[in-house]
Structures are given as C-alpha cells and as structure tokens.
C-alpha cells in the first residue's frame, strides 16, 4: 500500500488582491493553503477601494472560483473569504522561516487581539464606553476610532480588537462586556507550521507624507491627502456622506481639486528613480469619480509629467475622462503647495499650452503616491536569506518572474514584483500559484482527500416534516437575549414542524453528539439549524446531518444571531425572539418545497489545446506537459517561435527572445506529451469545459483534423503595426523601429557615419483614427535602439519625438539612461504633430520645441517610426470560430478586465500574450504561466464534482424559444441542433437564476431556488397571525 503521501500545503503571506487570488487558485487545485495577513482583517489595499478602475465599480467577488464554487464562500468578500482548503490567519506575522523548498518550518506569530472573536457578540458596547480616541489609520486619519475598534469599518464579522499602544487599561470595557471576551493580558501566540512552499504576497510600503522629507513642501494642511486617503474621502464608509466631497479640515465642499503625479516616484534625488505604474490611472479614475460624486461644478486638474496610459483600455479611459468628464491635464510638476489664511491651497504652475504662469487656489490637493519597495524586499531577504538584485529587490529567476532566485519552493507575486494594477496582481497571483503547484507536483505530494460520508436518500417526495435545531451558544447567550423557550414554543406551533431542539454549542464535539442523537429520535425528513456565522460551519454541520441520515440538500443553516439582530436598536428579549421566529418561518416553508439535488462528476477530457506556437504558446504548452497533461500545439505558420522568437535577439530588459524560443522549441518538439500541428488553424470549436471539440484545418493541404480536449489556451500574439505616416515607404531612410532593430542586429543598417537620427513615437497610435490604444512596448523599443546607436556611434545626435514616454515601473531607469547618454527627448502634442519633408533625399523633420516654443527642423540621416502593435489578423476568425468577441481595438475581449483578465465568459478558454493586448515579453511569460495554471486546475486528473445547485430544464414544458440561452451571462446553455433540446453546461452554470425568470413557464428552473420555494417564503413573510389558528 503506497505510504501515506502528505497533502501539499502552501503558506501565502499577505491577503491582498494577489495573495487572495493565489490562495484561491491553489485551493481550487486541491492543495491546502495557510493565508496570513499582518493587519487585523484581510483585504490589503483592496479593502479601501470601493471603486476600481476601469469600471469605477467594485467586483472583487468575481475573483471567487466558478467551477468549484460550492467549496468556497458564495457571498461578498467583505464578509471575509471562506474555502474548505484555505485556513485564514489575520493579524499574524512571520517570525522565521527555516528549512528549504519541500519542507519549510514557519514560526507564525498570532498577534494578541485582546478580544476573543469566537466569544465576542460584536454588539460593540465596549466601543461605546472606551474613553480613548485615536486616529483611524484605515481612513488615514480622516476619521477617529477608539482604542477598542474594528480594523475595516465595513467588514463583517467585525473581528473587534484592542490597540495595545492606545489602551490605557482603564477597564471600562471589561465592565460592560456581556460575554467576557476581553482579556487585556492576552499574549501573542507563536505556532510552528510545516509547509511545502511559500508565496510572498505581502505588498510593499506606500509613499506617505509623514516619513518622507520631500513631501514637506506639499503636505501643508490636512486638505492635502494621499491618493489612498482620497479613496476613503470618496467612500461611504470613509467620510463621504453623499452630495459633495468634503475637505477633511473644515468639511467645506471641495469644488476645485488637484492631483499631483509622481509624488515620491521618478526622483533621482531621493534615490527613487522608478515609476510606480498605477498612479496615472487611479488619478484619472479619482478625478472622474470626484466629478461624478462631487457634483457638476467640481473642477478636476491633474499635474503630471507623462500620463502613462499604457495598459489595455487605459488610453480610451483617459480620452473619456478628458473629453466626457472634462478632467484637465496640465504637463507641469509643481514645486509646492502654499496654505493661504482662509485654508485654501495655492499652487503656482507653468501651463505649457499658453506658456504662462498661473497661481490657482484649490480646495483639496491629492498627492498621487507610489511605491517604496526596498524596505519590504530587504526584510524578506534577511528573513529568508535570499539574494537581492542590483536594484535592491528580491532576485528572481528571470526578470519579473515569480520564482525567487536560488530558493526552490519560494515564490512572490503582487506588488513585490513591482507595483501592479489589479489585473496584473491577479495574473501574477495565478502565475505564482501555478509555479507553486508545479513545484508540489514535482515534489510528489498529494492533493486534499475528502472524507466522503455517503449521501442518504433525499426523501424529498415524502410529506415534509421539518426538524429545527437551535444552538444555544455557551458564550454568546447573554448577549443575543434570545428566549429559547419562547422560540421553541413559537416554532412548534407551525404546521409541518416535527421537532424543535435547543442544543448547547452545536459547533463543539458534545453539541454535535447531542444533535446526532436528537435527530435519530425524530421522523423528520428536513432539518433547519440555527447557528452563528453559518458560512464557517456550513460544511461541517451538513456532514453531521448526513451522519444522522439527512441528505445534505434537505439541510439548511440560518444565521440565528444575525437574523434576530438586524435593524433593532435596543429590543427586549421577547421582541428579538418573536422577530427571529418570524424570519425563520420563511426558511421552514422554503425548505418544505426544496427538491432533491444531485451531484455528479464533471466529464473532463484530460487534454489541452494551445493555439499559437510563439514564446507564450510554447511556455504554456510546456507548463502543462511537464505536469503530464497531453497538449496539442497549433501554429498557423510553418515554424514555431512567433514574432519575437524569430526576430529579436535581445530586449532592453535583458531577455533574449530568439535564444529563449530556440530552447523552448527544442523542448516542445522533444516532449512526449506535446503534439505540434504546423500550418494549422482552428476552423471551428464547440462544446464547453471538459468537452471541447475543435476542427483543425491545415493550410498547406486543406486537410481537416478533429480534436477532443478539455481546455484551451489562446496565445496567437499580434503583428507589427503598419503606417503610412511621415513619409514611410517613400525613402529607405525612413524605417520602423522593428526594421531598424533587425538592421542593427544583422548589420545591414550602418549607423557608424550617421549624424542625426530622429525617432517619432506614437506613429499611427493613440489617435481617433488608426490605433486608439497605446502599444506599451514602442518607447522601450525606441530607447533600446537609440542606446544601441549611441553605443555604435557616440557622436550621432539622436532625437526622440514623443507624446508620453511610457517607461512605467522599473523601466524608468532606461529612460534616465537614454537621457544620460545624450539622447534628446522632444515632446509634441497630437494636434501639432511633427511634419516630414524630403530635401536632397533626406527626410527633414520639422517640430516645435515644447520648452522654447520655437519652430525647429533637423535633416535626419535616419527617421525611425514607432508604429506599435496591431492585433493578429487571425483574431476575428478565431473569435468567430470559438464564439468569442473582440474589443473595439481588435484584441480578444476577456471576461473581466480586472478580476478575470485571462479568462473568457465561457469557462475553459484562457488567454495569454499579445492576443490579450500588446505587452513586454516578461508579461507574456507571466500570462502564459497563469493561463496554464487555470487550465491545469481542471486537467490535473482530479475528479471534479459539479455543483449541486444548478439550472435544469423540464424538457416536456420547453417550447425551445431559446430566450434562456441568450440571457445566460456565462454561455452555459446552448441549443442542441441535433437533439433539438437545450443543453446545460453544469460546470459553467452559476445558478444565478436569470434563465429561470426569463423562461415564463418554469421549464428552466434552478434546483434549490424554485418558484414554489420562493413563493412559500413570500407567504410566510406576509402572514400576520401565526399559522396555527390558536391565538
């Protein structure tokens, strides 16, 4: 008998966006996860953002798993995350990490909260009496809080705790605490845990106005806030009360608001010569929100140096902010803010449009603050004895990747890989989880085995007889004030209630035993359990019920205390009890009409199809094949390698695409699990997760091949941008950056004698006609070529005419290096573009110097145009073949740009690389790894159950009108042309019920949310007098 292999366990440090996503991915792949977070409640920066770019809305619950959804919490993430395989430890630090990959011993320091959340009834009487008031750091000091407080104001459960520094031990709270949950002498607990791998997702410190001296000339009043503090000014759980945005100092409505970009970033003097990448976009978002929430007369002005809108849809968002919302952008970095006697904030700036100075008063100034990464990296480097690279960041195996160099089993993601926006935090989280999963597979550890208790018969057809079990919580009794006897008396009078049991501490062992034997005695066939925090004990209580012979579908759990407490300020015990009894009537009625539910396993074909044989496609294919998944790799051309892999020797950030592609090609062709199909395209693809069928067509001989597979990754890349502007095509002295790069590499562009080289950025890009988006890589490409020219010919004069230099993140150092090498950057505005005329066979470039406002011209020996990246020409064909859609820019439209960036609405199809949008090779590799991990979750050979609660079709009633097919947001319903009926993809269906309402005669119904149940609940809610005729 194979000796018992341990269950793979991963420690994820930091429960911000990236940490949560990494934890969910690993949990969904069947591994155990310990998710810790320094702060008392999880969420990181996410908890402070009510509105996220680009939809200006919330959406974090779309991070939750779709296919394995019933193993995770199915409610808003502000009520915390729950997943069977994830153990969440908030307020827990890492004291030490011993050992190495495969067996780490980690000392976790569970910081003392001085209030035991298990006992605390969260009514907050202690808060009322606490005399100590301090600044609330969640709202960045905009609001104040007591020494006993809730870390995140809108989270639930509240998880109250005491701030030891602020607490004066006056003991007032002890007097009023009804449950004795407070212990002022509690100590931190240190616990050692064994894990196989560690993912660092702790995030980095943000620039603030207290600890950094260069902020002193700006932070002159409380009305100068950081961008994160401004998010709290916008939030209703911060200081926003509706109608107007109020100044923190005197609560006067703020009508004129200014943003100052690059606060703390792009500053050689302070040794922070990097860009924090996300501040431009969240400044635009905040400006738009300020105008929406502050009223029409709000003026929003952003002072910037380069508006870095490099990502997918970023440029459109900027255009919309400027054109539709009237946000003003001024290219000037102000030297400081002056506080005037009346409290308004004066700023003097130079407006390049009019070339004049202005002194303007603002009501509120927001400092767009960036990242300060070094301290976090150094702390981890010391703790883990891991090497730092020359930039002072944790060295990773390949630049920007997620594997910590020299430390197998140690990964990092989120802003530790460089401050990232939400979508990249999610992608790096998935990629880190993927690498960790690969590491665990190689280690040979096992996934979680479920102790399955057989599911008894559902007895759904029997006359309904409901048993009700009420937990009398040992600790919380006094607080909730429920009069259990009155409760029992009220419930027993309802018809079809078989038995009412009051059981002490149902969550504890003896409570469980008491429940078991009380159920054995009743003839009831349905069970309703009243407990606290049902979402935590749900699975466990259902297992107990199963042991007592109740089918888990026939068991429901309601939040006994939450229901009673809702909305009643100081109710008497009787009020609460009758109120709770009234609420429970609906649950009893609804349970009576609940049908039997059926869980079966997902039919998963354990093969993957990867479309696109470029570096991204090959990386994804290898990542899956290395874990034993058979992969079919389809490539349109006659060779593997893709655009970069066959043309570009080296990139500015140190990657060597041609060499990398050669290595990948060699591994792919030799891999026993990978079948390569060259000159081949996907003609048509039908089916859903686990059951795809694709028709492959070979271009050279027109043959077709049919393939069955379980998941699909699209990595079809893009094309070099085309242009006809600036005289391209009329002289061989006018090249594109790609042509120049090739010419420099293979030598047939000789720069040794050139005198003047002029480069023009955004040729055909970021314009209403032509490419509306920024292709993100051309500034890097131009600077790379310019530096190479200077290297080969130091006397050459190189000018780069640009609109915004998009060297975001740590790429800023290349922009600085280029300037230092003598390359002269000239800014131009889109409505005064440079003009090119031919004179004596040389292109003469005419432009206006933005600083001196003088017309200048320069004859160029070489004019190089940065034409960006066009979407792949096969994108439209592919979208039609797979029933996907394209964005207005012609790239593939992902399911959710922030929370599901590499997935589609239809589950089972994943996306990587330039098919998503133009991106540097580093990001292509990251997305390829993440896409492989998403596919591997279902192709790992594990048996995956379908959800119990899904939609179903009563075929006899179905008129085949297909209204339910069109309305499904997940494409989980399709009309089966052959059998003339509606097919449901049990994996993709999320039981949202839209189809059931669209179908007028209940042919489409969600099992567990049927009309009968809901109508019974409505009846129960409206009955004035109790059901029984007595009284």
């Amino acid at each position, binding site marked *: 008998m194979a000796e018992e292999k341990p269950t793979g366990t991963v420690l994820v440090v930091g429960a911000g966006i990236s940490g949560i996503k990494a934890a969910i991915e690993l949990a969904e792949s069947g591994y155990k996860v310990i998710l810790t977070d320094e702060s008392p409640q999880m969420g990181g920066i996410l908890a402070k953002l009510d509105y996220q770019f680009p939809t*200006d809305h919330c959406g974090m619950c779309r991070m939750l798993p779709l296919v394995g959804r019933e193993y995770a919490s199915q409610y808003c993430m502000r009520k915390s995350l729950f997943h069977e395989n994830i153990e969440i430890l908030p307020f827990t630090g890492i004291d030490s990490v011993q050992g190495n990959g495969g067996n780490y011993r980690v000392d976790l320091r569970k910081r003392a909260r001085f209030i035991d959340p298990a006992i605390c009834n969260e009514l907050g009487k202690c808060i009322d009496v606490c005399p100590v008031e301090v600044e609330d750091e969640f709202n960045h000091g905009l609001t104040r809080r007591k020494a006993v407080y809730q870390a995140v104001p809108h989270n639930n459960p509240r998880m109250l705790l005491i701030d030891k520094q602020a607490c004066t031990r006056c003991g007032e709270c002890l007097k009023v605490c009804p449950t004795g949950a407070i212990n002022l002498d509690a100590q931190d607990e240190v616990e050692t845990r064994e894990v196989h791998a560690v993912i660092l997702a702790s995030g980095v410190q943000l620039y603030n106005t207290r600890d950094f001296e260069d902020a002193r000339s700006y932070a002159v009043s409380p009305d100068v806030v950081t961008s994160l503090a401004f998010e709290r000014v916008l939030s209703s759980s911060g200081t926003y009360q509706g109608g107007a945005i109020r100044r923190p100092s005197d609560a006067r409505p703020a009508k004129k608001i200014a943003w100052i970009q690059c606060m703390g970033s792009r500053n050689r003097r302070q040794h922070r010569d990097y860009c924090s990448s996300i501040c431009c976009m969240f400044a635009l978002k905040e400006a738009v929100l300020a105008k*929406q929430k502050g009223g029409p007369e709000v003026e929003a002005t952003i002072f910037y140096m380069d508006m870095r809108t490099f990502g997918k849809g970023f440029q459109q968002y900027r255009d919309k902010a400027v054109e539709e919302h009237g946000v003003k952008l001024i290219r000037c970095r102000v030297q400081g803010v002056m506080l005037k006697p009346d409290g308004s904030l004066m700023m003097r700036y130079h407006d390049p449009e009019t070339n004049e100075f202005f002194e303007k008063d603002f009501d509120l100034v927001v400092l767009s603050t960036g990242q300060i990464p070094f301290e976090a990296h150094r702390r981890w480097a010391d703790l883990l004895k891991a090497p730092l690279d020359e930039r002072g960041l944790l060295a990773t195996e390949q630049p920007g990747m997620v594997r910590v160099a020299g430390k197998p089993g140690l990964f990092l993601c989120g802003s530790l890989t460089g401050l990232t926006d939400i979508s990249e935090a999610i992608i790096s989280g998935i990629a880190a989880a993927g690498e960790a999963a690969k590491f665990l597979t190689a280690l040979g550890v096992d996934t979680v085995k479920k102790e399955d208790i057989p599911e008894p018969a559902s007895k759904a057809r029997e006359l309904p007889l409901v048993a009700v079990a009420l937990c009398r919580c040992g600790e919380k009794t006094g607080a909730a004030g429920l009069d259990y006897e009155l409760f029992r008396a009220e419930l027993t009078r309802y018809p079809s209630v078989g038995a009412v049991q009051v059981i002490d501490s149902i969550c504890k062992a003896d409570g469980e035993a008491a429940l078991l034997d009380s159920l054995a005695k009743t003839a009831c066939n349905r069970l309703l359990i009243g407990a606290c925090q049902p979402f935590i004990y749900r699975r466990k209580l259902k297992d107990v019920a199963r042991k007592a012979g109740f089918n888990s579908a026939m068991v429901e759990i309601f939040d006994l205390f939450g229901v009673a407490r809702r909305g009643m300020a100081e109710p008497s015990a009787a009020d609460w009890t009758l109120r709770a009894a009234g609420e429970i009537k609906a649950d009893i009625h609804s349970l009576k009409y609940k049908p039997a539910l059926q869980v079966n396993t997902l039919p998963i074909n354990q093969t993957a199809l990867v479309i696109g044989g470029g570096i991204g496609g090959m990386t994804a294919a290898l990542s899956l094949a290395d874990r034993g998944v058979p992969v079919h790799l389809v490539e349109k051309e006659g060779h593997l390698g893709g655009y970069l892999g066959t043309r570009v020797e080296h990139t500015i950030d140190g990657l060597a695409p041609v060499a990398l592609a050669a290595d990948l090609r060699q591994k792919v062709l030799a891999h026993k699990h990978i079948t390569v199909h060259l000159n081949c395209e996907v003609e048509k693809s039908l089916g859903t997760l686990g059951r795809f069928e694709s028709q492959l067509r070979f271009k050279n001989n027109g043959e077709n091949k049919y393939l069955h597979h379980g998941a699909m990754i699209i990595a079809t890349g893009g094309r070099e941008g085309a242009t006809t502007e600036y005289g391209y095509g009329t002289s061989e002295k006018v090249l594109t950056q790609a042509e120049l790069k090739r010419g420099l590499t293979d030598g047939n562009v000789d720069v040794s004698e050139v005198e003047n080289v002029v480069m023009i950025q955004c040729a055909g890009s970021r314009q209403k006609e032509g490419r509306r988006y920024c292709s993100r890589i051309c500034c890097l490409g131009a600077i790379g070529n310019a530096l190479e020219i200077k290297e080969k010919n130091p006397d050459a004069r190189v000018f780069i005419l640009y609109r915004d230099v998009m060297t975001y993140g740590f790429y800023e150092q290349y922009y600085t290096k280029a300037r230092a090498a003598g390359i002269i950057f000239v800014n131009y505005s889109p409505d005064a573009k440079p003009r090119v005329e031919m004179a004596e066979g040389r292109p003469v470039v005419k432009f206006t110097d933005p600083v001196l406002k003088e017309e200048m011209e320069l004859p160029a020996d070489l004019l190089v145009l940065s034409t960006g990246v066009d979407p792949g020409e096969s994108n439209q064909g592919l979208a039609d073949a797979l029933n996907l859609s394209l964005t207005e820019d012609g790239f593939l439209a992902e399911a959710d740009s922030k929370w599901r960036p590499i997935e589609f609405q239809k589950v089972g199809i994943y996306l990587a690389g330039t098919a998503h949008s133009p991106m540097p090779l580093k990001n292509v590799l990251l997305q390829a790894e993440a896409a492989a991990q998403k596919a591997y979750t279902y192709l790992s050979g594990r048996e995956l159950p379908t959800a119990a609660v899904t939609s179903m079709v009563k075929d006899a009633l179905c*008129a085949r009108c297909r*209204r339910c097919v069109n309305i499904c947001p997940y494409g989980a319903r399709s009309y089966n042309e052959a059998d003339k009926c509606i097919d449901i993809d049990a994996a993709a269906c999320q039981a949202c019920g839209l189809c059931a309402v669209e179908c007028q005669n*209940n042919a489409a119904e969600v099992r567990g949310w049927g009309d*009968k149940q809901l109508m019974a609940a409505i*009846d129960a809610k409206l009955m004035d*007098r109790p*059901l029984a005729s007595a009284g």
Partner: protein
Amino acid sequence: MAEYAKLSFQKGGLNKELAAFFRGLLENGAVDGVLVPMAQNHKWVRLTLVTSASHTAGVDPFAPVAAVSGAKIASSLTSRPSGRTIAMVLRPCEIRAVVELAKLKQVNLDDVLLIGMDCLGRYENTDFVKFQEQGGTSEAFLENALAGKTSGPDFDIVGACKICEFPTAANADLSLCAIGGGNGAVFIEALTEKGGQTLEKSGMKPSEAPAGRNEAVKKLAAARLEARDKKFAEFRAEVNSFEALADKLAGCVNCYNCRVACPVCYCKECVFITDTFRHTGEQFMMWAEQSGMLKMPTDTMFYHLTRLTHMSLFCVGCGQCTSACPNGLDLMPLFRTCAEKTQARFDYQAGRSLEEEQPMAGFATDELIEVTGQVK
C-alpha cells in the same frame, strides 16, 4: 416596388376567381400547399391546408370570421418545419402575431409564402353562423363594410376589429387588396421580391395600383384609431384600480381558455397549470385565515396580471381572448390598454418588424436610469 395584379370578377364570382388563383399556385409548383380559409360545410369557414390543385373550389378568404388565430396554425405547421413550401393566407393581426412568434422561434418563415389581405373585421364565430344562415356572402360583407356598414340585424364585427388600426397587411409577400379596388375587382399586391416572382410565375398581368386605395386605407385606419383611443380612454377610466380590475375579472373561472386562444401565448403548458400552482390544503386554509374568506379557485388576478406581464409586449390586439371567454369577459381592452403602455415603455410595437429585438432580449448598462432614480 409594390406591383399590383387585378383580379376582376362578376357578381358572386369573387371566390371562383380566387380559387383559380390558388389553383394556379399549386399547379405551377410555386408552393406545395396553401393554407387558406375555406367553406367546410354550408355554415363554417375554416383554415384549410390544400395540397391538391383540384381542391381549391371552396376557398373564401374574405369570409368575415377567424375561428382560430391563423398564427397558432402557422406555428404548429412550421415550428418543426416540413421542409415543404406553404402559402398562408392570413389576416393582418395573424401576420403580426406570426412575426412575434418567428422571433420566439415558434414559427419558421424560411419556406413560407405569406399572403396577407385587407381586413374589414370579423364576426364572432356564432354570429358568423347566423350571417351565413341569413344568406350573407363575403362579397356582400365586403361591399357593405367598404361602405362603412358591418353590422347584421343583431350582431356586429368583434370589438377588437372595431378599434384595429391595422386594416392592411405589412410584412407579407403578397396581399389581397379589397379596399380601393371598386366593386367587381380585387387586387393582388406584391410586397416583396418573393411575392413579385410568385405573381409573375402565376401569369397574372401586372396592373396599375387601385386608384383611391391609399386615401381609403388612411381614412379607415384613422377612423379605427379614433375609435381605439375612445375605447381605451373609456376602459382606463373604468378600470384604474385593483378593485375595478377584480370586479372586471369577477366572472373568470380560471379555465385559461383565453391563453389557449391567444396566438402569442406560446408556452407548451402555462405555469399556472404546472405543479407550482397546485397548492396544498394547508396553504388554502392559511390564505383563508388571513382575511376570513377565500374565493376559489384562487390565483385569478394573479394569472391575468402575470399573463399581462408575460405577453403584453407581444399582444397584436386580435381579440381572440374575448372571443374565447366562456363567461363573456371582454379581455381585449384590458390586454390592449396594457400592451400600449408596456410596448411604448420600450419603444416597441408587436409585429412591426422581424429584425426589431424584443424588449426582454437585450439590456444596456446606462439605460432606464429613472427606474432606480439613483446616480452614483
């Protein structure tokens, strides 16, 4: 492109000429079958599927009766299509119902030649029998109706037709035009490419448009519209509250016949007869005890309000619901007044066009802001 062909006839010879026209369609293979109103015995005219050319003698399309809505027949003929081409002679309201059913995938128009007609109204089925017994003929009815007189001694055309503002057929391939043709002549109008080819193939000589047709149609439609608005105003003044509606529906016995007759109620089985509405004794007692008494059967207003919500967007105002009610409840004004409001809310008109998306099929992010009245 509306081409016309003139079909003149001696007195009493209208149906003979029409029979010849339909026989021509079958003989020249334009269609494999013709669904057309035909006299079945001396009293009744019923929609009949004629497949042999020699059986068209009894056709009587202009008979002022529609025993069952033609749209329901079209649905059963084409929801699982035979693959054969069928010409269907239908009244304007039936064609508008067919347009809605096509969008609901209940009718497949691929192999259908739609033949519309001018409709001057229809009698209730029982009244039509009296009309026949008193020797009434379609020709006579047409003549009188065109002169504005549609009533018989103790009966008149159905309420729905009195207020129907769509006397002529749109969305059809061909149309039998009686208005403006003068006595002794009916015109066949080709409205589509397919219609034009069928006309050519049938050897009919093209003729100029009937002289006074447009004004006559406009005048008739305007008169009907005025009658409609008067009827709507009357009905709305009378039925504007729950009590009034309950009073109006007091005679309803939940026989659901109005749903069976309604062409756009396409569900195979209405939800009100599924187990969702098969209540237990305990539930009846519960409701009764709430206010001390309970009319049985229950869910009457529930049924009508739900039917209004489900189908008022597709209601074409054909009046079959009123005709079908055994207790004489005049449901047509209830459904048409409601349909006017709900269709107007989405700027939609039932039967107007095959391409127009039905309101519940789509949605947009920034629409209907007034529903919640909240701006972020």
